[in-house]
Every structure is written in C-alpha cells, then in structure tokens.
C-alpha cells in the first residue's frame, strides 16, 4: 500500500470538491441569503485538502488496490465534509440526517429525509442538486481530465469510479477519455437546461432540475418533486433526458466521432431501449383505470418508468395507489438500471444481458453436458472469467440486498414493502421506494441507524460494491507491496 499516494489523491479530490462549493455560494449571495456558512465549509474543506496534499509523495506508483481504496475513502470523506454545510447552515441540524442527505446527493440516489424542502434557502437547495451533478460522473474523473499526462496508472482510477462490468476507454488515453466524458456530460446537461427553460420554468428550477437529471439523482427543490410544477412540457423534457443519461456515454462518443454504425451493433443499447418502451406500454395499460384516461396513463407511466430505469427518482405522481404489478415492475427495472458507462444506477443492462445469455447457455449445458459454452455479446465471444465475474457480482449484490433488508426490518417504523423497496431504492441509487418512502414521501421518519445503513448502501451502489467492501478487509491495509503484481509489469 502506498499510503502517501492515497492521501495525496484524496486530498486533491477534497480540494477540488471544496472549490466547487463556490458555485452554490454565488447562488446564495445572488439571492441575498446567508453565505457565511458556505465560506466556513469551504475553509474547512480546503484546509483539510491542503493538509492531505501538503507533501507530494515521491513514489507515485499506485496499483489497482490503492486506486480502489483511495476512491472509497475519498467518497466517504467528501460525504462527511459535504454534510458540514447542511449542519453549519442549520438547514439539516442532525448529523445522520445531513450525512444521509449528502450521500444521497453525491451518489445520485435522490432519497431525502427532508419533510419541508421548500422552506430551505435557495443556495442550499441549489447545492443539493449540485451534489447530484458532481456525483454523476465522478470527481476523480475530473481530476484525471485536468491533470498532466503520463500517469500510467490512471486507468485504475478511471475504472474505480465509472460504472459497468467492462470499463473500456473511449480513446487510447485515460486523460482524453476523461475529457471526452466530461464534454459529453456538460454538453447534454446544457441541452437539458435550455429545454427546461423553454418549457417555462425559471432559471433556478431549470438549473437544479437539469443538474439532478444529469446525475440521474432526482433531488428536486420541491416537496412534491416534479409533480409540484404541473408542467407537462418539463415532465416530457425530463423523461427524455433521464433516458438519454442512462445510455452509455461511449455511444455518444461514437456518434460524435462519426462511427454510428458501431452503435447499431451495441446489444446493450437495444436491450435497454426495448425494455424501456415495453415497460412504458405495460405500465400504461395497467394504470389506465386508476389514473383515468390513456393520455394521463401514458404521461405518468413514461415519466415513472424513465425515472425508475435511470434510477433517477423524480416523481410526477404518487404511484403508491397504482396496481401492484406496476409497482413491482418499477422496482424490477430499478434493479436493472441503465447502461454501463452512464450516470444511471442499478445492476446495469450489460450485466443483465450477460447473465441472461450465459444462464441460457448453462441451462442448455444441463441437457447436453458436451455443449461448449458460447456467450456472445456484441458479436464477440466472452471468456469464462468475464462471465464468472458477472455471477460473482450478482451473488454479492443479492446477498447485500437480503442482509440489508433484514437489518432495516429492525426499524419499528417500516413494513415489509417499505423495508425491501427502501433497500432496493438506495442500493440502486434510485431514491424513492414504495410505502412511506414513496415518490412523494421521504426517509425522514426512519431511525438514525436505518439512515446510516441506507447511507452505506448508497455508497455501495454508486461505487459498484467492491471498493466499499474492500476497505473493511484487513489485508488491504498491509503495508507490503503487492510484489507479484509489481513484477508482472516488467515480465510481460
């Protein structure tokens, strides 16, 4: 373990995070609200970042393990520091609540403990949505984009923070990939912002909503989420952009670089599109009697499906009174989530595709043991180790979900459907579940312990499980360098 390099990396992330707080501060000043709490928070964050980066380590070598550990710790530390603003400003005075809200923002979950959101100052509300935007792509990827060339180990960072089973680079170099990712992210966010302005929202709402949509976070500055606006245009725009942000950014990169043909072969993309529209049709048919009329049904169904599949978590209606089939379907697509390499949460479509395809092959193998496994994704044969990693991921995923549901049931405030849906919603970074944590409800009534558990689940989900588990394994922290790996670099 190269501890110095871990601290240094965390320090750089913390410093950058502190600087981004200037943006909500300017908003607070603009509205003539209290901005001293921002200054204090920024000062604390920057001084901690300064301590961490005080001395640049001589040994810059890091490996997969160091990268994973620094990412995991950095997200925890940034969540703790970010929660300070809620506490200092008095918006959310209790630690567990502030911590929950911050993690919910930065992991793009969008679950909230706030009962009366609208009573908060606008600067804080802006900050809340802004954390969605920051967490969407990842803070470290931004550092990779702005840092100098030649860090040969940067690939490990890129992997630790991006989503999906195979984290391939769009370009040859990590730096260029990071830059491309950010350009795409900013570009689509600006489009979203302009479209929302055109639907008649004021700039504050358009800005916060586009931030929350971009990170597929779902923290809206209103008590009733998107439903409070009653603006059909805005709902359509958000539906479309939630969908856009759940697609692998590499697809946009390919389109941008004129390789549209390659995107047609992308199985993940088509599976996602098909499931998306199929779910809308099914839910529309199912709720047509409840909400009254086809157009209303289509409006609510498309919005809620888009919100669930992208694990965004906006609501334009309370689906608690919908038929059970629709609610279950929404939970199910929440588990699946969007495409790999997007800002969406969940298992990721590519994992589901791989799991389904290989399970089918394995089943065929039962009837004919001599059959050779042949799992092809995008026309390319996938090797056994990749398939095994999918099963492994899924196995841990289910285990964590089961254990956390059991633990959450200890909370006297929850019933079975709330416990399960709350775990699914936070673990997949979706946000609202069913029952008391429904789309227009909140997590405020849960016990502190439950909030802490769900906070941890959100971090687990955002960083795709492993980093947040690895830091609790003692052998990770042994100082000994991983000699086998180190040598293998030169023996290649």
């Amino acid at each position, binding site marked *: 373990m190269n501890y110095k390099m871990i601290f240094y990396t965390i320090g750089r992330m913390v410093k950058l995070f502190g600087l981004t707080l200037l943006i909500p501060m300017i908003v607070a000043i603009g509205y003539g609200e209290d901005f001293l709490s921002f200054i204090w928070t920024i000062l604390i964050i920057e001084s901690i970042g300064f301590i961490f980066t005080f001395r640049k380590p001589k040994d810059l070598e890091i490996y997969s393990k160091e990268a994973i550990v620094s990412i995991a710790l950095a997200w925890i530390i940034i969540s703790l520091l970010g929660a300070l603003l809620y506490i200092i400003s008095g918006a959310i005075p209790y630690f567990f609540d502030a911590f929950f809200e911050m993690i919910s923002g930065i992991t793009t979950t969008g679950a909230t403990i706030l009962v009366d959101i609208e009573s908060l100052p606008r600067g804080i509300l802006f900050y809340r949505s802004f954390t969605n935007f920051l967490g969407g792509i990842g803070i470290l990827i931004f550092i990779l984009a702005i840092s100098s060339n030649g860090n040969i180990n940067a690939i490990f960072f890129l992997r630790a923070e991006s989503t999906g089973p195979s984290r391939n*680079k769009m370009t040859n170099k990590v730096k260029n990939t990071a830059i491309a990712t950010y350009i795409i992210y900013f570009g689509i966010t600006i489009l979203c912002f302009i479209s929302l302005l055109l639907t008649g929202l004021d700039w504050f709402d358009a800005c916060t909503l586009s931030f929350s949509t971009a990170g597929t976070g779902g923290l809206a500055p209103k008590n009733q989420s998107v439903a409070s606006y009653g603006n059909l245009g805005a709902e359509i725009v958000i539906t479309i952009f939630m969908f856009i942000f759940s697609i692998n950014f590499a697809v946009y990169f390919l389109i941008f670089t004129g390789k549209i043909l390659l995107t047609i072969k992308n199985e993940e993309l088509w599976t996602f599109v098909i499931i998306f529209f199929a779910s809308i049709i099914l839910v529309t048919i199912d709720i047509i009697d409840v909400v009254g009329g086809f157009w209303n049904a289509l409006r609510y169904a498309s919005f809620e499906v888009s919100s669930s599949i992208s694990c965004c978590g906006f609501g334009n209606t309370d689906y608690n009174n919908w038929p059970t089939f629709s609610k279950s379907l929404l939970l199910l697509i929440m588990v699946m989530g969007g495409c790999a390499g997007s800002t969406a949460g969940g298992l990721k479509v590519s994992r589901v595709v791989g799991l389904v395809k290989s399970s089918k092959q394995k089943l065929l193998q039962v009837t004919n043991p001599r059959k050779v496994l042949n799992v092809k994704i995008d026309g390319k044969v996938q090797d056994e180790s990749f398939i095994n990693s999918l099963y492994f991921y899924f196995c841990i995923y289910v285990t964590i979900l089961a254990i956390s549901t059991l633990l959450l049931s200890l909370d006297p405030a929850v019933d079975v459907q709330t416990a399960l849906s709350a775990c699914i919603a936070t673990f997949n970074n979706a946000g609202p579940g069913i029952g008391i944590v429904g789309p227009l409800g909140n997590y405020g009534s849960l016990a502190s312990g439950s909030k802490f558990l769900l906070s941890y689940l959100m971090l687990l989900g955002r960083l795709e499980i492993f980093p947040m588990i690895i830091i609790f394994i003692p052998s990770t922290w042994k100082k000994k360098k991983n000699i086998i790996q180190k040598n293998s670099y030169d023996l290649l």
Partner: protein
Amino acid sequence: MKIVIAGCGKIGTSIIKYLCKEGHSITVIDQNKELINSIINVYDVGGVSGSCTSTVTLKEANINKCNIYISVTGDDETNFVSCKVAKELGAKKTICRFRDTDYTEQAELMRDLFGIDMLVNPEFAVAKDLFYRLRFPYSSEVSYFEKGRVISVEVKIPEGSPAANKTISEFVENNDSKIIVGAILREDNLEIPNGESLILAGDVLNIISTPENIDSVIKNMGIPYKRVKSVLIVGGSRISYHLSNLLFDIGVDVKIVESSTIRCKELAERLNSNVEIVQADGTNEQVLAEEGIESYDACLTLTGHDEENILISLFAKTNGVGTVITKLNNDKLVEILDKLELNGKISPKKVTVNQVLYFIRSNRAKEENTIEKLRMTMDDKLEILEFNVNGNDDFVSKEIKQLKIRPGVLIACIIRKGKIIIPSGEDYFDADDKVIVCAKSSVNSLDGILR
C-alpha cells in the same frame, strides 16, 4: 502523436513503456487477447486483438489517423507485410523490425519495396554497441556518434584517482585534455556539470570526446585498462554473428562457443574461417576452462537465457577475464547483476527502444534540424542527442554565450565539415553543423534547448 504498435513481445512492451511516458496516444495490436488485456491494464494505451496484417484489425486500430506505425512482431515477413498494408491504409510513417541476417544484406531493397521509413535490426544494433564497448572496455556504456568519431563513455572515478577532488576545469587544464564531461552521476542524482563542478571518487562521469582523447584522459584519471585483443563469445546468436564480423575486420581474435550443431554449421558457413567456432555446451565450466577462458581479454555471454548468461559471466569473472559483458532481457535482473559486481551488461530491448524513440522524437519536431541520433544512458537519466543544424534558424552564427540555454542542457560537441569542435562560449552554430547535446529532460529539437 498517434502511434500504433503491432506485437507485444519483449521489445514491443518496452517500446510501449517508454512511449507512454512521453505521453503519446498509443494503440497496440497483438493476436493474444489476454496479453492485450494485461497491457491495457498496466499502460495507458488502447488495444486491438487480431492479426496485424489484416485490414480489419488495422482499421479497428484507426490506422488511417496514425502518425507512426511500428511493427515489432516476432516474424520478419509479418512485419514487412503489415508495414506495407498499414501504409496503404494511411499510416504516415512505418517502422519495421527484422532479424534475419539475409535481410541485413538487402535492407535497402526491402525498405523501398515495402515503403518502410525506418528499419530496425536490433541484433545488428546490439552487435555494434558491443563492438564499441569492447573498444572502450573501461566504460559501462558507450554511445557513438558520427560513425564512431565522437564517443561518449561512462566511467567510475576510482579511489585515489588524480581527478578526484578537483573541479572539472582544473582537471582538464592540468592534463591539457580536450574532453567534455556531459554528466556526473552521484548516488542516483544526475547533474549536468559546468567547469566549477567538483569530481569526487565514486562518481560516474559521462565523458564525450574523440576516441584518442578519451583514451588519454582515462590514463590520466588513473583507470587501469587493457585493450581487448581476443574475445570469447558464448552463444551463437545473430548478435554473435554480426559482432564476429565487426571484430574480425579490426583483427581481434574471436571464438564462439555454441551448443547447437546446426547453428554451428550455419555460423561456420557464413563467417570467415579464421573465426573459431566450437560446438560445446557453454554452461559447462569444464568446456570453458578447456577453451582457455582465462587467456581471453573479454568474454561475452550472449545465450538466450539470462540466468545462463549470468552464471557464465560469474565464472569468467572468477577466472580473471578483464572485460565481461552479460546480455540481459529482463530488466529486473540488472539489480542482481550490480550486486554480483558484474558491471558489463547489455539489453537488446534498450538498444531498440533508443532507435525507435529518436525516430519518433525527430518526427515530432516541426523544424528541419532533426535529431540524427538519440541515446539514453546513465540509468535513463541522461539523453545524448545529435542534431543537424538548419541554416534558417535565428540562433545560427550567434555565439553560444549569447544564447539562453535551458538549465540541465549542455552543448557537448559541434561537428563542422568533419572537424570536431569542443565548444567554448565563443563558438557558434553554423548551417549544416552537427551538434551533440546532453540533456536531463526530453528534447525534440535544437530550438528546444533554448529557453
């Protein structure tokens, strides 16, 4: 710059390593998918698995946008063909590695036939390197410029040397020697010195001058050495073949010990009959003793196995052979070699990397004063470069002391119309001069040494 590298063998991987450090955008091609994956995991490069002669693979690697295509697979013919295909598909420059000695003789033909911009023959390059090493046996690394008329050597100052505890200018004036000290390596710290820099015992000095000057300076520094007149080579590789030819031409006795009968016959057919070829197992101590290892001035271990080479070198050293050079493919073993006090070592990988690097650097520079040669020495800490001066530059005809030279850069030598000038402040660059420069950081052009 966009670079595509085909073949991730020993040489391919080390090229990737160095080019990555220089920040190029690299795509690698190899047929082995697992190898590609492990390289992508370690280095910041993109990868494509497939055959490098197939247009599908090359297109996937964006060959049409690539500036330089490097083909270093293990197979000569594949390299030639893939270079041609790459060029047809739009690669701007191609570099091709070949090893077969037959192609050495028809290198020009192959170059024209396949439109290759640079041919790399590592074995021949290594042989040439070894040749110069044997000419200056006291140096742990030798770089040669201008067909060997300017030499750079690395020597360690022994205890009690007359040069120790003197500044460079004191030493040079005392001995009236025309040399340039290009760099001083002291406990892992490399310094580009000036006249006031102090020489201490234990320092490793990089000295640049003409061969004759260097020989006399070495004497004055109190470093004992003996000219190499006879060489024992263990292992009949292609390097041995090229080296024997070179050595034979200057009248050095050469004996090659090779265990394979077939290879011995091949060598015997191709080499002059005065080069002695012995068919025996070179790892066998008795064989070496019988062949009179202790009577040779130098022993080179050039078998295909690093471990064997080290053992034979140790044996040679204990038998009192003055100069022992060990061929090593694995960089990690170098440290072990240092502990065993086997100072002479050569890495074929590094020689090739040097060649490829200078080609890429000189292609990056926009100006015409291109790099003629690039050498990385002193544990890769020092770069020695040879530039051609273009007449149009503004620094031409200005006195060197008027130019603002970047710190960490030293102008070592100017070669004007075949005359070698060790520059002082009053000297100047002229059109068509060749300039040799020592630098701590990478330099692409002669402009780049100015502030």
